[in-house]
């Protein structure tokens, strides 16, 4: 099926999300839609799939002009979209998720539905338990379910919006294989929306690059990365600077700490992080790394061992004591744990001031907010509510909220959902803090990020903490093996600097 978007315009208030965008999606190919955060990729795809109405322009399917009033209408015409956060029903079973909107009889034929699900699952080698609740699935599995559902509804064009965010490396490989299968064997069209260059490079046949709501170029793949970078950002990215910092005395000492939880107990964790050092944590989601990080922040109770910051034992101290010791914790879930919906940026900065006077000096707070907004390049105003910002800008606000003097910075996915330029910028800010002796511990699912910025990397597997390895002594492949619970390659093993603590 051939889909043409011709001169699409869409604006929100004064923001022109799509400003005369045209692109053609051929059948039997994977079409990349590349662009940095806020370039208008998602808006364009939402316009195509009936989630949003266009201001002007034409959409043609197989040469016929169409206008979809709702996503259901788009899928009836064979165009379906897999959203970044899959649009499913977390508390319902897999089968019910599959049936809803598919079987329209009064009493759905569950057996037939289950057979259909199984048959499609076998075709793509997905293993989904029809009786499992969707909450128990990983994001990758939820995506698989959505893909199968869209196929069952007869989707000829499948649009995936940033599908690799939050899924594991094996799941990503599987997803890519599936997309190739859809395009090559079944002659369907796949649109792959992403800001990750290497993924587009790896997967796509053709690429359209958006920047500030306009098409800056189209290219057949393969195509030099420098060309794509220039189309995305308008210039080549400068290489990142890596200042060498001498590591100082130990800041964080974890000695045999055991962290129990309802689902998983992480036993006997040991780690020493020195002043100015960056330690990365890898592992499949739910392997215990988050528990560990939260324990270091004083947010999880430990039942054995000890945690010390700057030599001061804080094992059972309240979070407040950890803060006093100079830690900061940046959670992954920005809107739930990091920021407060409904408060403006000024209010956030005022709130972050722990030792301020009882009455808030709003004039000073606004001035402070304006300064930090400028310093951290946040696109937003002191009086904007934080939920009105884009994801990347929310992340910048979180960084801006960190205190100036920190001993230990604990972060989950510091650059998740950010484009290349933003994440480089974020890391420049973070690494600058090492000069003051701040130690950094961060969790990331992005192995390249871990290798690039961490001095040492710790892998968690099934609630076990493996011995740290030096980043310069390992490779993506070596890390991948450890994450998957296999013996690390010889190189990684030799380089594994075992912790003495």
């Amino acid at each position: 099926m051939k889909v043409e978007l011709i001169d699409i315009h869409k604006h929100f208030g004064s923001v022109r999300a799509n400003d005369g965008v045209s692109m053609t999606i051929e059948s039997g190919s994977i079409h990349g839609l590349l662009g940095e955060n806020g370039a208008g990729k998602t808006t364009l795809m939402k316009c195509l799939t009936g989630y949003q109405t266009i201001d002007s322009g034409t959409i043609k399917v197989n040469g016929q002009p169409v206008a979809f009033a709702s996503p259901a209408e788009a899928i009836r015409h064979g165009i379906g979209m897999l959203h970044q956060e899959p649009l499913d029903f977390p508390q319902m079973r897999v089968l019910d998720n599959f049936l809803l909107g598919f079987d329209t009889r009064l009493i759905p034929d569950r057996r037939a539905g289950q057979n259909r699900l199984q048959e499609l699952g076998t075709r793509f080698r997905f293993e989904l338990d029809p009786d499992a609740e969707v909450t128990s699935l990983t994001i990758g599995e939820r995506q698989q379910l959505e893909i199968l559902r869209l196929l069952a509804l007869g989707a000829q064009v499948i649009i995936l919006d940033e599908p690799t965010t939050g899924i594991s490396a094996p799941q990503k490989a599987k997803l890519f294989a599936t997309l190739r299968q859809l395009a090559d064997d079944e002659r369907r069209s796949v649109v792959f929306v992403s800001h990750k260059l290497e993924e587009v490079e790896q997967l796509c046949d053709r690429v359209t690059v958006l920047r500030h709501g306009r098409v800056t170029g189209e290219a057949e793949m393969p195509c030099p990365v420098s060309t794509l970078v220039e189309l995305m950002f308008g210039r080549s990215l400068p290489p990142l600077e890596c200042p060498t910092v001498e590591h100082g005395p130990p800041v964080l000492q974890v000695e045999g700490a055991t962290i129990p939880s309802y689902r998983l107990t992480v036993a006997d964790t040991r780690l020493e992080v020195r002043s100015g050092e960056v330690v990365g944590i890898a592992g499949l989601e739910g392997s215990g790394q988050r528990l560990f990080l939260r324990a270091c922040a004083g947010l999880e109770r430990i039942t054995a061992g000890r945690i010390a910051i700057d030599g001061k034992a804080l094992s059972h101290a309240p979070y407040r004591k950890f803060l006093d010791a100079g830690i900061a914790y940046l959670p992954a879930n920005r809107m739930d744990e990091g920021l407060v919906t409904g408060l403006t940026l000024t209010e956030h900065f005022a709130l972050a001031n722990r030792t301020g006077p009882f009455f808030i000096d709003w004039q000073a707070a606004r001035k402070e907010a304006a300064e930090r907004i400028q310093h951290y390049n946040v696109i937003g105003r002191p009086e904007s509510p934080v939920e009105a910002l884009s994801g990347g800008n929310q992340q910048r606000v979180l960084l801006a909220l960190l205190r100036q003097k920190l001993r230990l910075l604990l972060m989950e996915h510091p650059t998740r959902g950010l484009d290349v330029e933003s994440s480089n910028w974020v890391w420049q800010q973070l690494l600058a803090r090492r000069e003051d002796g701040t130690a950094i511990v961060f969790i990331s699912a992005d192995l390249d990020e871990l290798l690039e910025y961490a001095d040492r990397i710790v892998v968690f597997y099934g609630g076990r903490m493996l011995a740290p390895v030096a980043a310069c002594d390992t490779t993506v492949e070596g890390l991948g093996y450890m994450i998957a619970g296999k013996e690390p390659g010889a190189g990684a093993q030799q380089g594994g600097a075992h912790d003495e603590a």
Partner: protein
Amino acid sequence: MNVEFLIQTLASIVSSSAPVVLASIGETISEKSGVINLSLDGSIALSAMTGFAVAYTTDSATLGVLAAMAVGALIALLIAFASITLRLEQVAVGFVLTMLGLELADFLGNPFVRQPGPSIPHWPIPLLSDIPFIGPVLFNHNILIYISLLSIVATWWWMYKTQPGIKLQGVGERPESAFARGVNVNRMRYVYTTLGGALVGLAGATYSLSIKLGWSHRHTAGIGWIALAIVIFGGWNPLRVAAGSYFFGLLKALGSILQRNPAFASVPTQIFSSAPFALMIFTLLLLSSKGVDRLLDMLPPRLARRIDRAIRGRAPGGLGRPFEQG
């Protein structure tokens, strides 16, 4: 304790629990679609009063029942309009309507206080009521009690076995996803909220035309609140919600049995009438406490998960959240 006494007690629990069952099932339907009808206590009072007043004036219990259902549905429709179309805070609107319902029932019901009036005729179901034990417990009542029993099974069947029922779950769980699958979210919410309200109205009618005949000051005695609590702790599952309602009925029955026992003659009667409320809340708290988590931890994980699923439920993800369509 002899069998005759046991049958009598169980039968009385079945009939006296009917209003709580109907109200909590009605509320379950409405909340499952994502709309909180907090006005339950006021709705029940106003529909109980209206039901009796209409029955008294027209000398027809049937018309009374219909009028009560209409009142319940109308209040629910008001809540639906305020929360879905006007996008007002559901809790605030519900609370105001509770107060209004209670006060209106009191004021408008004045002429009917302690008047003898018609009631729903007793009607044992032929054949079924002859079954030993089960017959007299379940099938020796009037039509409203049978409807309360039927409402449990029918709601459960509709929600979990039919296609519109799955849609209903989806609408309350995540309206965005339901919309993406072509469901008219707001229309479904209107329909189910109103239907739930009609059942709440029926609960009121059951009170004044079957359980506690007639009308008096504060006649319905706070059962709306207990029904709301039962819905939450019943995990929005009709079967568990019904079980919770009957458990409350059992506590009340035990109270009155103990009260008649000479050994407790010195205990003030208020204790017996208010203890079920406290005990109910206590039981519900116990079930959701951390202690149960620890007990479950000792069981094999498969079994533990099953029990956890059976005794607890999470709120529909979209509960109380208005949905902007298209």
